[in-house]
């Protein structure tokens, strides 16, 4: 009797979850695949083949791999550096640092790029005052593959940071102590113990960063087009900008190429990770912590400098450009105006709608994904290594392919009423919501999986022997232990989704605009000042929401709110 019900619970859970994964991840991918494979009858002229024959595809592929690879490296260095310092050391104002490090994700990368171009360009106010500004029109080092990689790296560093942090806060102290006693210097401790012990999380973070970089359009569009440097997402956009009628199949084919890359990359990652997987034993020990000693001040200065570059400078640029009357007008006491804010607030309709829509979509997606990924990750961990690797990689694909292509897949799938239930989702917020779920599932799942893989199985076994059913164990034991990872996943989703542009751009319709779409449309139609004003409002709003979350912290397990320590 008991057996049956608990087995049923399991079966029910598995079937629902895998059904969901299929619906969310596999369906759009399959639809794109069928689109890519269309027109086979045309032989060598078939879209997929003509794409594969085009040398520009391969150049873009190479470029994509280079920029994403380098970008990932930068993200890992930056993100893990911050995670290590902010989680494991006795640095002061830790909460503030963490809080600030989350925010660069909220600033559109184009803004960061532009602010840097201005900061180090001919018109730079700072460099001009110092008299070392480059001549008008002199070449900009940012317009290059490395420039793209740098920006990608910065943009995605918080992904690595959050994925890693949730792991580091349960790093058992005694393992570190044992190494200290062996005489390992601080440096060796990092290299030999902390990095390998948090390797799963670093891999997970690197994987999200890589996949994000691979699918990113905004940064290569900003910095790559002027340099004549194309990557797969910009190539896809090129394809769309034509007037041809094979657009969809070509775009789908290119996306399948990205999907293919991701699958290979993820399988590789899983393979490396599984060959050396281990779980921690015990967990009862205190978490580790280091003293910085005389390095405290220099470290703080370094952090401050980095934050200035990636947060303060772009944010300042954004603020300045939101309070001038027109582009290019220098900010003085005379020119200062709140007109843009006025306009946005008075033009309430779409602004308020966009805010509500985006906040609603982002928080619901984050919440639902947090709820889904826990049992999903838990079930995945129980599959055979191979099955797990394949499923986990498939989940990755929707996030990796550029959002606009995912949106195409959703249009193709949902523009007609859904058979049987006869409901049209197209043109509703629900469809954008579904697309978000599909897109961000992997973002949320990664940290959860890495946390699960390090859990001591005995902790769950102890609950099992107490008679707890899988669901009870999941809620009472597994969830509290990995809640920092779950919440980190949710937070990542929220931060990415609240500004999300490309998916919603194609799926929106009147009344369903999102913040990303609103800002982009304003920007594109030349109303950059209004766009800046909204961007500033978004940053302020999200920051205050995050601050509000701190109020919840005392009721949540330790480590759940990253900036509350």
């Amino acid at each position, binding site marked *: 009797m008991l057996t049956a019900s*608990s087995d049923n619970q399991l079966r029910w859970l598995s079937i629902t979850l895998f059904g969901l994964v299929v619906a969310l991840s596999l369906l759009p991918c399959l639809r794109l695949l069928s689109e890519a494979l269309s027109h086979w009858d045309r032989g060598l002229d078939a879209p997929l083949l003509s794409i594969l024959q085009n040398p520009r595809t391969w150049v873009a592929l190479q470029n994509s791999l280079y920029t994403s690879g380098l970008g990932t490296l930068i993200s890992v260095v930056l993100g893990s550096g911050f995670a290590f310092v902010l989680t494991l050391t006795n640095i002061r104002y830790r909460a503030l640092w963490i809080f600030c490090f989350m925010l660069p994700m909220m600033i559109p990368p184009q803004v960061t790029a532009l602010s840097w171009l201005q900061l180090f360009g001919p018109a730079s106010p700072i460099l001009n005052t110092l008299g070392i500004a480059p001549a008008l029109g002199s070449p900009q080092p940012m317009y290059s593959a490395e420039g793209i990689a740098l920006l990608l790296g910065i943009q995605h560093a918080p992904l690595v940071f959050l994925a890693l942090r949730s792991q580091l806060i349960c790093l058992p102290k005694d393992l570190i102590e044992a190494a200290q006693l062996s005489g390992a210097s601080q440096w060796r401790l990092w290299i030999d113990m902390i990095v390998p012990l948090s390797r799963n999380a670093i891999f997970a973070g690197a994987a999200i960063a890589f996949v994000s970089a691979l699918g990113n359009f905004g940064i290569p569009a900003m910095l790559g087009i002027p340099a004549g440097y194309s990557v797969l997402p910009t190539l896809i956009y090129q394809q769309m900008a034509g007037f041809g009628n094979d657009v969809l199949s070509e775009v789908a084919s290119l996306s399948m190429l990205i999907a293919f890359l991701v699958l290979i990359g993820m399988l590789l990652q899983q393979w490396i990770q599984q060959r050396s997987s281990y779980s921690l*034993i015990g967990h*009862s020990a205190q978490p580790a912590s280091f003293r910085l000693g005389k390095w405290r001040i220099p470290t703080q200065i370094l952090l401050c400098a980095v934050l200035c570059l990636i947060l303060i400078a772009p944010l300042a640029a954004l603020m300045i450009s939101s309070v001038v009357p027109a582009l290019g007008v220098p900010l003085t006491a005379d020119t200062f105006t709140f007109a843009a804010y006025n306009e946005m607030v008075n033009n309430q309709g779409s602004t308020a709608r966009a805010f509500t829509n985006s906040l609603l979509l982002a928080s619901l997606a984050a919440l639902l994904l947090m709820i889904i990924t826990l049992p999903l990750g838990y079930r995945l961990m129980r599959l055979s290594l191979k099955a797990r690797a394949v499923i986990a990689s498939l989940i990755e694909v929707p996030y990796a392919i550029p959002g606009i292509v995912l949106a195409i897949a959703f249009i193709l799938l949902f523009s007609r009423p859904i058979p049987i239930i006869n409901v049209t989702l197209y043109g509703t917020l629900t469809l954008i919501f579904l697309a978000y779920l599909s897109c961000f599932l992997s973002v949320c799942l990664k940290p959860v999986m890495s946390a699960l893989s390090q859990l001591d199985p005995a*902790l769950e*076994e102890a609950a*099992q*022997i107490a*008679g707890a*059913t899988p669901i009870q164990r999941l809620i009472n034991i597994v969830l*509290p232990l990995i809640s920092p990872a779950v919440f980190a996943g949710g937070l990542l989703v929220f931060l990415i989704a609240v500004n999300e542009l490309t998916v919603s751009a194609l799926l929106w319709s009147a009344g369903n605009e999102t913040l990303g779409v609103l800002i982009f449309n304003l920007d594109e139609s030349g109303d950059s000042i209004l766009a800046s004003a909204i961007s500033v409002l978004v940053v302020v709003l999200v920051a205050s929401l995050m601050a509000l979350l701190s109020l919840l912290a005392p009721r949540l397990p330790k480590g759940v709110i990253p900036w509350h320590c």
Partner: protein
Amino acid sequence: MALLTLNQINKSFNGQNAVSDLNLSIEPGAFVALLGPSGCGKSTTLRMLAGFEKVSSGSIFHGGRCLSNATTHVAPENRDFGMVFQSYALWPHMSVMENIAYPLTIKRVDRATKQKRIQEALAIVQLEPYADRSPAELSGGQRQRVALARSLVTEPEVILLDEPLANLDRHLRATMEETFRTFHKRTGATMVYVTHDQSEAMSLADQIAVLKNGQLIQWASPQSLYQQPRTAWLADFIGRGSVIRMQPSDEVQPGRKVEQSLIHQQLVLPHTPSQGVDVLIRPQSVCLHPSLGISAKVTQCIYRGGHFDVELSLPSSQTLLAYHDTPLAVGETLFATVQEGWSLEPDHD
């Protein structure tokens, strides 16, 4: 209350056998110890009983119910057993009290009973003042006691204990042993107790299974294990003593008691038979005397808290272990009588 049987159990990890051809039949309400050296497969056996490891072959029955075999596997949560883990496996996110309360919560025990049971369990392991601490703030032994309390609190039908007292001092250990005894008497639960400590096994269990390299060496009561061990290795593992080599005869054969006179006959001979039967002599059957018995030379004398271990060299150049209350000078010659011996099977491995 039902019989717990293990039939021809095998378990291998990556092709290496951890448990081989194990047969045990544990009476309902029995107190059974699994004893053996480190790495012999005790924990693995226990984990198969609990259901955390599947059997590679063989089957486990509880009464008429098949718990595990090649095709069936009842999940641990459906076996209704209790267990203490060797690594404690305390939930770090719960306080001591919550750790202990969890199994009761799962069983939906009502509030009042729950409170009562928790208090009792805390009292048993003497951790009342620590109820609100988190496991990370406890000493090693305190953690072990929490794990113990957690396993007893629901009073399951079968309790599996994996070295539950390894980190406790002799005193607390005695108290806990007493707790186990009374608990066992009161609830009539079947208890399977893994330990590496023969004296613990001896004083607690009705029946002891001694394992070595995954194989069952002997399955017997404590007294017969001590007095009539099957092999020399077992004799040595279970208690102290010396083994002498004797000429086989009708009376000197594996599995037989050997009389004083026969032993003395052998020991006064100036040489040891190169082949023969091994006979175990426990130090308690060796009496030292200033003038009576076989002459023996003291080769070592070590203080062991309360008595001295005396190693004696005999005319046959065999050695004997004896106990003595006062120190003896190394090199001193005195006389020994051996009251009885036990002939052993040869070891196979």
